[in-house]
C-alpha cells in the first residue's frame, strides 16, 4: 500500500509547507513595513515584541477578531468565494516548488518538494493564471464601481502580462530542455554562480522581463493599478474587511513568495550554492540537506527585498503606460529573447 | 482500470449538454460558453482516442482546437461587445438581424 504512504507523506508535506508559507507571509509583511519605514526614514513597527517581531501575530489577531461585514448589495456566493480562490491559488502553486536538494529522499519520498511534476513550470503558470479569478470575482461581486474597475484593470493586466511572463521563461526551458523545475535547477548546478541561467545562460533579458511581468502579475508597485488607492479607494477589495481582507492580503504576499521562488528556480539556480562545487558535499547529511534550503531562502529573501525596495522607491505607472509597456516592449522583447536563445542553442550544437 | 468508453460517454454527454445549452439559453455569452463546452467535450474524446491508439496527434489536435477556440473567443467576444454597444442587449432572440 505504498500509495497510502504517499498520500500520508504528501499531506504532511502540505501541512508543513502551508504553515511555513503562511508564517513567511506574515513576516514578509513585517519586513515590508520595516524596510519601507527605513526607506522613508522612520522605524516601522517596533513596539510589539523585540524589534516589533510579534507585530504580525497581533495584526492577525486583530483582523481575525474584527466584525465580519458583508455589504447588502454584494453577490454573496462569489463575494465569499473570491478571497478563498485567491488564497487557494496562491498557496497551491508552491506545491511544485523544490526547496532543497531533492536527493534527500528517505525511503524514496522527496521531502523538500511536495510534488515533483514533469510539467512543474506549467503548473505554476496555470495556477497563477487561475488566480486572476479571485480578483476578478471579488471586484465584480462587490457591486461597487471602484471594485469593478479594479478587477477589470486586474484582469486585463494579468492577461496581458501573462504572455510576457510565459514567454520570458521559454528561453530557460529551452536551455534546460525540460519543464520540470527540479531538472531546471539541476541544469544550473554545475558551476555555481556561473552556470545560473541569468549569467551562464545569458538570460538576463528574460530575467528582466520576468521580473517586470511578475510585478505586474502580483499587482505590486509599480504596477499596482488594480488597488491604486488614490484612484480606486482600495480597488477590488474595497468592500472586504476583517478576515476576508486578510485573505486577500495573504494571497498577495503568498504570490510574491511564489514568484520569487520561481525566479530563484529559473534564473538563480534554485537551491544550488552560488559557489558551485567549490564547497563540496559535507560529510554531515543534515548540513547537506539544510544548506541548499539556506541558499534557496536567501535567494527568495533577496527577491522579496527587491519587491519591497521597488515598492518603496518607484512611482506607479499610468494604466495606458502599463498596457503599452506590456504589449509594445515586453512582449516583443520576450519573443526576441526566444529567437536569440534558440539561435544560440542552434549554433552551439 | 477504467474503460475508455466511460471517457467517451462523458465526452458525449458534455457535448450534448453543450447543445442543450445552446438551445435553451438566451444570453449570447452563455450560448457562446455552450459552444466552448461542446468543444471541450470533443477534446476529451480526442484525448481518449489518442490514449487508445497511443497517438500523439490526437493530443495535438486538441491543441489546435484550443488555438482555434482562443481565436474564436477573441473574435466572438469582440463581436458580442460590438453587438452590445449597438443593441444594448445580449438576448439572442432580439438579435435577429445580421446588421448592427
Amino acid at each position, binding site marked *: 500500500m505504498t500509495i497510502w504512504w504517499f498520500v500520508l507523506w504528501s499531506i504532511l508535506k502540505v501541512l508543513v509547507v502551508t504553515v511555513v508559507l503562511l508564517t513567511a507571509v506574515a513576516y514578509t509583511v513585517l519586513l515590508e513595513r520595516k524596510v519601507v519605514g527605513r526607506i522613508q526614514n522612520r522605524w516601522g513597527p517596533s513596539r510589539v515584541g523585540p524589534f516589533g517581531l510579534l507585530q504580525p501575530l497581533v495584526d492577525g489577531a486583530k483582523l481575525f477578531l474584527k466584525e465580519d461585514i458583508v455589504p447588502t448589495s454584494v453577490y454573496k456566493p462569489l463575494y465569499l468565494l473570491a478571497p478563498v480562490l485567491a488564497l487557494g491559488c496562491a498557496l497551491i502553486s508552491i506545491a511544485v516548488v523544490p526547496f532543497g536538494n531533492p536527493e534527500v529522499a528517505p525511503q524514496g519520498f522527496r521531502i523538500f518538494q511536495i510534488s515533483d511534476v514533469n510539467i512543474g513550470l506549467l503548473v505554476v503558470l496555470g495556477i497563477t493564471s487561475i488566480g486572476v479569478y479571485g480578483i476578478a470575482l471579488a471586484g465584480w461581486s462587490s457591486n461597487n464601481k471602484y471594485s469593478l474597475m479594479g478587477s477589470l484593470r486586474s484582469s486585463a493586466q494579468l492577461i496581458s502580462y501573462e504572455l510576457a511572463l510565459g514567454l520570458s521563461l521559454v528561453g530557460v526551458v529551452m536551455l534546460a530542455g525540460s519543464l520540470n523545475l527540479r531538472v531546471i535547477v539541476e541544469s544550473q548546478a554545475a558551476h555555481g554562480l556561473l552556470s545560473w541561467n541569468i549569467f551562464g545562460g545569458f538570460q538576463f533579458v528574460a530575467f528582466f522581463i520576468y521580473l517586470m511581468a511578475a510585478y505586474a502579475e502580483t499587482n505590486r508597485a509599480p504596477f499596482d493599478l488594480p488597488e491604486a488607492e488614490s484612484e480606486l479607494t482600495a480597488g477590488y477589495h474595497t468592500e472586504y474587511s476583517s478576515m476576508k481582507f486578510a485573505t486577500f492580503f495573504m494571497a498577495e504576499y503568498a504570490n510574491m513568495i511564489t514568484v520569487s521562488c520561481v525566479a530563484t528556480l529559473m534564473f538563480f539556480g534554485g537551491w544550488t550554492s552560488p559557489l558551485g562545487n567549490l564547497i563540496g558535499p559535507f560529510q554531515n547529511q543534515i548540513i547537506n540537506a539544510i544548506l541548499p534550503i539556506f541558499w534557496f531562502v536567501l535567494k527568495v529573501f533577496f527577491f522579496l527585498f527587491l519587491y519591497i525596495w521597488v515598492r518603496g522607491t518607484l512611482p506607479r505607472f499610468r494604466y495606458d503606460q502599463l498596457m503599452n509597456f506590456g504589449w509594445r516592449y515586453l512582449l516583443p522583447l520576450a519573443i526576441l529573447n526566444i529567437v536569440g536563445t534558440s539561435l544560440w542553442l542552434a549554433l552551439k550544437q | 482500470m477504467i474503460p475508455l468508453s466511460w471517457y467517451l460517454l462523458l465526452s458525449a454527454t458534455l457535448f450534448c449538454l453543450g*447543445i442543450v445549452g*445552446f438551445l435553451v439559453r438566451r444570453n449570447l455569452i452563455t*450560448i457562446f460558453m455552450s459552444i466552448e463546452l461542446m468543444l471541450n467535450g470533443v477534446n476529451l474524446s480526442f484525448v481518449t482516442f489518442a490514449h487508445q491508439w497511443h497517438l500523439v496527434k490526437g493530443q495535438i489536435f486538441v491543441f489546435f482546437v484550443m488555438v482555434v477556440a482562443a481565436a474564436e473567443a477573441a473574435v466572438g467576444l469582440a463581436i458580442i461587445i460590438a453587438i452590445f454597444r449597438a443593441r444594448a442587449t445580449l438576448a439572442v*432572440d432580439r438579435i435577429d438581424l445580421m446588421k448592427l
Partner: protein
Amino acid sequence: MNGPLLFLPLIPLLPFAGFLLNGLFGSRLPKALVTLIALLAPLGSLAIVAHDAYLFWSGAITFPVIEQGAPTWISVGTLHVDFGFVLDQLSLTMLLIITGVGFLIHIYSAGYMAHEKGYWRYFAYLNLFLFFMIVLVLAGNALLMFVGWEGVGLASYLLIGFWFQKTSAADAGKKAFVVNRIGDFGFLIGMFLLLANFGTLTFSEIATKIGENPGWTGGVLTCIAICLFVGAAGKSAQIPLYVWLPDAMEGPTPVSALIHAATMVTAGVYMIARSHAIFDRSPVALSVVAIIGAATALFAATMGLVQTDIKRVLAYSTISQLGYMFLGCGVMAYSAGVFHLMTHAFFKALLFLAAGSVIHGIGGEQDLRKMGGLRKKLPVTFWTMTAGVFAIAGAPFLSAFYSKDAILYAAFQQGTFGRVLWAVGLFTALLTSFYMFRLWYLAFFGKQRAPELHPHESPWSMLGPLVILALLSIGGGWIGIEKFSEWLAPAVGTHAVEAAGGIPEWAFSVIAVSMGLIGWLVAHVLYFAKPDQPAKLAGSFSVPYKVLVNKYWVDEIYNALIVKPLLMISRFLLEWVVEFAIIGGVVWLLAGIALLTGAILQKWQSGNLRSYAAWLAAGAAALLLFAGAVLLAANGVDIKWAGWK
C-alpha cells in the same frame, strides 16, 4: 499590265487625301492652305482623268480597262469581292463630268463659303464626296459601287446637315440618309439575288453570263432589275422616294449643285446604265423604270410650278429631269439617258450656282417673291442664268435640246405605250419651260420687291465657274446623240432605233421646241406682262393650287401611313404590350413566384439563432439516426475500433 499607266486608284485617292488632310488638320491650317488642298485634289483627279481620256483617244489603250490584281476586299467562301476598278466609255464620261463639274464647284465654293466658320469641314466633306462618287463610278462590281453609293449618301448627309444647328438642316440630312437607305435596301436585295444566281457581283462577269444565255428573260432578272431600280430610285429621287431631295436644299448651294443636281442624284441612272445587261432582258422592269421616270418627271414639274423658294424650284426641276433620264433608260435609250445626264449636269449645276450667286448676292434670301429686278445688279449671274434657263427649256441648239429630244424620240418609238410616255414627256417639257421662265422673270425682271436687300455681284471665283458652265450648257449637246450613242455603245450596248413611223426627226424637235415656247409665253404673260395675274389664277383654281403648294401632301401622307404607324406600333404594341406586358410580365411573374416562395420560406429563416441551432441539431440527429440506426443495423455491422492504427 504593260500598257501605259492609268493611275486609276489615284483618281479617288487624291480627293480622299484631301479629305484626310482637311478633315484631320483643317481646323488648324490657314484658310488659304485648306483651299489649296481642297482644290488640288479634284484638279489632280481631273488631270488624271484627262490623261486617261487622252490615252484612249490616242489609241494607247482600249476600253474597257478592267483592273487586274486589285486588292481583295472581302473573300469568304465563294464570295470574293475586290477593289477592282473598271474604266470604259461610260465611267470615263461620268468621271469627266464629276471631276470637271466638281472642280468648278470647288472653285465656286471657295468664294461662296469664304465666310463660313466650318470652311475646312465643308471642303473636307466635299472632297470626301468626290472620293466616293469616283469610287461609285469606277467600281467594277456591285459591292464596290455600293461603297461609293453609300459613301456619297454619307457625304450628302454631312453636307445637307452642314449647318447642323438648324433643326431643318439636321432633319433634312437624316431624312436624306434614311430614304436613301430604303433604296439601299433594294440595292442590297438586288445584290443578294445577283450573288445567289450568278455567284458574282462583278459587272463584266454578269454581263458575260447573260450574254452567253440568250434565253434568260424576265423572272429572276426582273426581280433583280426592280430591286436595283429601287436603289436607283432612292438615290436619284424618283417616285416614291423623291421626298428627300427638296429638303436637301437645306445644304449649302454649291452642294446642291454638285451633289443634288449634277452628280450624286444621277448615280441611279448611271447604275442602270451600268447594269443594262440585266434590264435589257426584263421588259417588265424596263416598263417600270420608264413609267416611274415619266411619272416623276411630270409630277415633280407640277410641284415646281408653284414653289417660291428658288432652290426648291430647281430641286423639283432636278427630280423632273432625272425622271427624263429614267424615262430614257426605261426605253432602252441608255445613251440618251446618259447624254441627258451630262447636259443636265452642266445646266443644272449652272442654274444652281447661278441661284447661289443670286442668294449670295442678296444676302442669303431664297424667296423668289422678294427678288426681282436683279438683271442690272447681277449682270454676269443674269446672263449665265439665262443660258441655263434656255438650255433647260429646250431652246434650239442648246444642250438640253439635243438630249431631251433624244429621249422623247426614243420613247415615241416604243409603240403606244411609248407614245403615252412621249406625250407626258412633252407636257413636262412645257411645264419645265414655264416654271423656269417663271423663276427667271421673278428673279431678274420687274422691280425689286424687297428694298431692304442690297444686291451685289459675286466675286470672280464664283462667276468664273458660272461662265464656264454656261458655255458648257450651250455647247454641251453639240456632239449630237448619234455620235454620243456610238461612243457609249461599247459600254451600254446598241439598241436599234427604228424610224418612228415615218415621221422625220426634226418634226419632233419642232414639237418639243414649240412646247418650250408655249411655256415661255405663258410665263411671260403671267410674270412679266401681267404680274398680278398669278394671284388671281391661284384664287380661281384654289384646290389644285393648294394641292401643288402643299406638294400633294406626300410628306404628310408618308408620315401618316408609314412613320407614325411604325412609331405607334413600336411604342404601343411592341414596347408596352410585348416588352412590358408579355416579356416583362413573364419575368416578373417568375420573380413574383420566387419572391413568394422566399417570403414563405423566410419565416423559417427567422434570424433566431436558437431556432437555427435547433434545426441544425435536428438535422444532425436525423443524419446520425439514419447512419447509425438504419444503415449499420440493417447491415448487421458491428463497430470495431481495432485495425485503425
